[in-house]
């Protein structure tokens, strides 16, 4: 009665059963775990609180430090909560749970194991605020963290006691910091950042653009500390222990201890824990003289991780790691025709090299195929050239590992002029990154697919499983071609589906204090107006690009710049780099603004069509939509500030209209009113983030008489936007519904040309 699969791999079957139970619980009984959260958890105190509090607890993670764009330092760590003082309370309250803490320019150095008291704001982390973007709340929740804490700049953290942490973990963190510093001292910032990620799993020093290079070439797995590292560590240790006259059992125990120490040093991430469990079971099997079933060890690792932390199932790292290993163990042999990965000892060197390259190709292929349903839903892209990229990157990483091991063993005693390892590493790094840059720029290296509809996604997963398992296919080339063609078909079907059931939709993205509004039109065409700020936290990279990619957008028909201020154009650098922009639209004014020079250079470099428009003109050739230009006027108005030159657009669709006003100020609004422009609109993007309206501003809003107003504004911005008076004016318009991106997140408005339906994206 018991299926063969369960009899042969009971632990894998148990892990699959547990995964199914977790998925069931997550979707059908989502509140099951709420009762298990203690009533004094910090998240209960954080709800609705905006006043500063004092929080006491013990630092239970490594303290990460990074430079901010503005030259300051930002440190972050995880705090095990102990006590909470509300400013109006005298006695502290006991609090439970863990908090992610962010402090800036801390005067007193904080380290793992310190008992500290900090002052600042305790908050619930922000969830997904824009479609297709990162969900910080869910990410932290998977680590058991339900609150975030932003330190008060004027209050330095008080360290009450040191050394309250676990002794072994403290030493592991010290070792990591020592090794990390050795890399920083020897290599330049970018190379050191990469090597720290490769060896120590420390990704905070990696430049974002450099990280993108790995994502776009499908080689991100190199940066995840995983089985690759554990395998190499074990091989190196066995090699080094070879000359010592100790028993094989002692060597196995030594390697076992080293693996878990390494796991501690790199910080308990799912892929490395998975690999450590599997390696440990393999070594224990050897010690006990038992044969190991690799799929069963994989199942055991999954069981342990999921029992300790069920939410890990929804972590991309966990999913990719387990799927890739399952694919390698279960399916690679049917492509290579052999059950073992290692070559025959009697082969010549040439035969061995060919064998390894063939294995590598099929391993890369299986990993690419089996993880595709996960990668496409999270990164929205397909990376066909990753097959070629892996053929270069994996052997070079192997050499980098070897030279890295020599570097770590020798750097603290060998005179600098004798140290050849760093020279070799620098050379390998150059070759490594150079190859990836070439791969990234090759046509078709990656293409945007978009987030798949659930039905299409289920079809994709089922099809991949079918073609991997179909026993009637004997020839590995035929199997590979069938899989490649099937995936291509799903991607094409996704492309085709975007041409149907496409409503007219306006999305005002939550880009903090800035603007980014995206329009998609029913009969084809799209338009992006502004792209948020770029300095500090690039909203183009973190919000606009993921949003557009999730929608499968590759081409933007009109990229409109309302006016050249950083909070509107900063994110355009990423947009111009990542998407094919057909037309750049701006107001007809001489722009002597520093921030704009970079964009202008990019426009010229990419030979984009630039449409400089002014009042009285309109953008033609959208099939079902007209875009009318209401500002700026043709003639220059000396003395104006740039805000008053904002491009004001009116988008007309059927009987509905959408008024986009950039940062138009009082003078500009007076001028538009004077021109007699038809301001009456269904939807108004409120000018200048809801700053205070004066006489003409109020008249402007009254004349527009919108049914929906959207204020694009950052939470707790220093300008105190939106002004209460402006909100009052907006609310005084009969039937007007006011949305704010700081409270309502991204605002989506769908229209059929007769009516509009609006919604805040998430709460």
């Amino acid at each position, binding site marked *: 009665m018991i299926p063969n699969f369960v009899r042969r791999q009971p632990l894998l079957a148990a892990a699959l059963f547990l995964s199914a139970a977790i998925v069931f619980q997550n979707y059908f009984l989502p509140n099951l775990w709420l009762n298990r959260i203690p009533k004094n958890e910090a998240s209960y105190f954080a709800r609705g609180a905006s006043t500063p509090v004092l929080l006491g607890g013990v630092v239970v993670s490594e303290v990460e430090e990074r430079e901010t764009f503005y030259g300051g330092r930002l440190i972050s760590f995880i705090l095990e909560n102990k006590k909470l003082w509300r400013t109006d309370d005298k006695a502290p309250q006991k609090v439970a749970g863990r908090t992610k803490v962010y402090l800036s320019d801390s005067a007193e150095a904080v380290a793992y194991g310190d008992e500290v008291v900090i002052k600042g704001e305790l908050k619930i982390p922000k969830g997904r605020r824009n479609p297709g973007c990162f969900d910080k709340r869910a990410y932290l929740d998977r680590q058991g963290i339900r609150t975030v804490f932003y330190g008060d700049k004027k209050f330095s953290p008080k360290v009450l006691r040191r050394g309250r942490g676990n002794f072994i973990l403290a030493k592991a963190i010290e070792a990591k910091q020592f090794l990390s510093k050795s890399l920083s001292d020897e290599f330049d910032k970018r190379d050191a950042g990469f090597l720290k990620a490769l060896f120590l799993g420390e990704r905070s020093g990696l430049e974002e653009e450099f990280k993108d290079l790995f994502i776009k070439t499908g080689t991100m797995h190199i940066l995840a500390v995983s089985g690759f590292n554990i395998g190499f560590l074990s091989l190196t240790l066995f090699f080094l222990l070879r000359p010592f006259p100790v028993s094989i059992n002692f060597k196995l125990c030594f390697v076992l201890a080293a693996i878990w120490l390494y796991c501690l040093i790199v910080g308990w991430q799912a892929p490395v824990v998975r690999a450590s469990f599997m390696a440990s079971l393999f070594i224990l099997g050897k010690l006990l003289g038992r044969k190991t079933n690799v799929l069963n060890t994989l199942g055991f690792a999954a069981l342990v991780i999921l029992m300790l932390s069920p939410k890990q199932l929804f972590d991309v790292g966990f999913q990719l790691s387990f799927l890739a290993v399952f694919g390698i163990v279960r399916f690679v042999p049917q492509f290579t*025709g052999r059950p073992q990965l290692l070559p025959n000892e009697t082969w010549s060197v040439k035969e061995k090299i060919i064998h390894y390259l063939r294995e590598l190709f099929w391993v890369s292929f299986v990993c690419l195929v089996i993880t595709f349903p996960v990668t496409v839903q999270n990164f929205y892209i397909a990376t066909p050239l990753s097959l070629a990229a892996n053929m270069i990157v994996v052997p070079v990483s192997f050499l980098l590992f070897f030279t890295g091991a020599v570097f770590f063993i020798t750097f603290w005693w060998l005179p600098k002029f004798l140290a050849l390892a760093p020279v070799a590493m620098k050379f390998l790094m150059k070759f490594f990154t150079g190859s990836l840059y070439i791969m990234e720029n090759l046509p078709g290296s990656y293409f945007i697919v978009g987030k798949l509809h659930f039905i299409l996604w289920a079809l994709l997963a089922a099809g991949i499983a079918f073609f991997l398992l179909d026993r*009637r*296919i*004997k*020839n*590995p*080339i*035929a199997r590979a*071609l*069938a899989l490649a*063609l*099937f995936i*291509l*078909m799903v991607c*094409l*079907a996704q*492309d*085709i589906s975007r*041409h149907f059931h496409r409503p007219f939709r306006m999305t005002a993205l939550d880009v903090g204090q800035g603007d980014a509004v995206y329009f998609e039109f029913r*009969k*084809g*065409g799209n338009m992006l107006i502004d792209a948020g700020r770029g300095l500090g936290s690039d909203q183009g990279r973190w919000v606009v690009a993921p949003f557009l990619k999730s929608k499968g957008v590759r081409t933007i*028909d*009109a990229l409109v710049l309302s006016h050249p201020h950083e909070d509107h154009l900063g994110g355009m650098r990423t947009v111009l780099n990542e998407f094919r922009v*057909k*037309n750049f639209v701006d107001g007809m004014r001489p722009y002597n603004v520093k921030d704009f020079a970079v964009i202008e250079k990019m426009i010229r470099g990419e030979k984009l*069509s630039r*449409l400089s*428009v002014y009042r*009285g*003109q*309109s*953008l*033609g*050739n*959208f*099939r*079902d*939509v*007209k875009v*009318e230009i209401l500002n700026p006027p043709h003639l220059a108005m000396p003395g104006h500030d740039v805000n008053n030159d904002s491009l004001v657009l009116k988008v*007309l*669709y*059927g009987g509905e209209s959408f008024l986009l006003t950039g940062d138009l100020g009082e003078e500009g609004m007076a001028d538009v009113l004077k021109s007699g422009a*038809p301001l009456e609109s269904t939807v108004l993007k409120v000018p200048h983030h809801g700053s205070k309206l004066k006489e003409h501003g109020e008249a402007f809003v009254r004349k527009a008489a919108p049914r929906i107003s959207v204020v694009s504004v950052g939470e707790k911005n220093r300008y105190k936007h939106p002004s209460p008076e402006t909100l009052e004016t907006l609310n005084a318009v009969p039937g007007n519904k006011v949305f704010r991106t700081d409270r309502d997140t991204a605002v989506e408005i769908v229209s059929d*040309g007769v009516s509009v339906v609006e919604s805040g994206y998430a709460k």
Partner: protein
Amino acid sequence: MAHKKFSSYETKLLFSLLFLAAVLFSLSLYLKARDEVHLKVVEGPARQAPS
């Protein structure tokens, strides 16, 4: 790599998939060309959206 030639099942399967992929590719190209927008600036306001 014991199987050098494709079996009849494999050949049929691959041809079917290739045919379907070609159909989808053509449809995708057609729709892309159909919905292509060649933007231009028009003098004078357009108070009404085209029907």
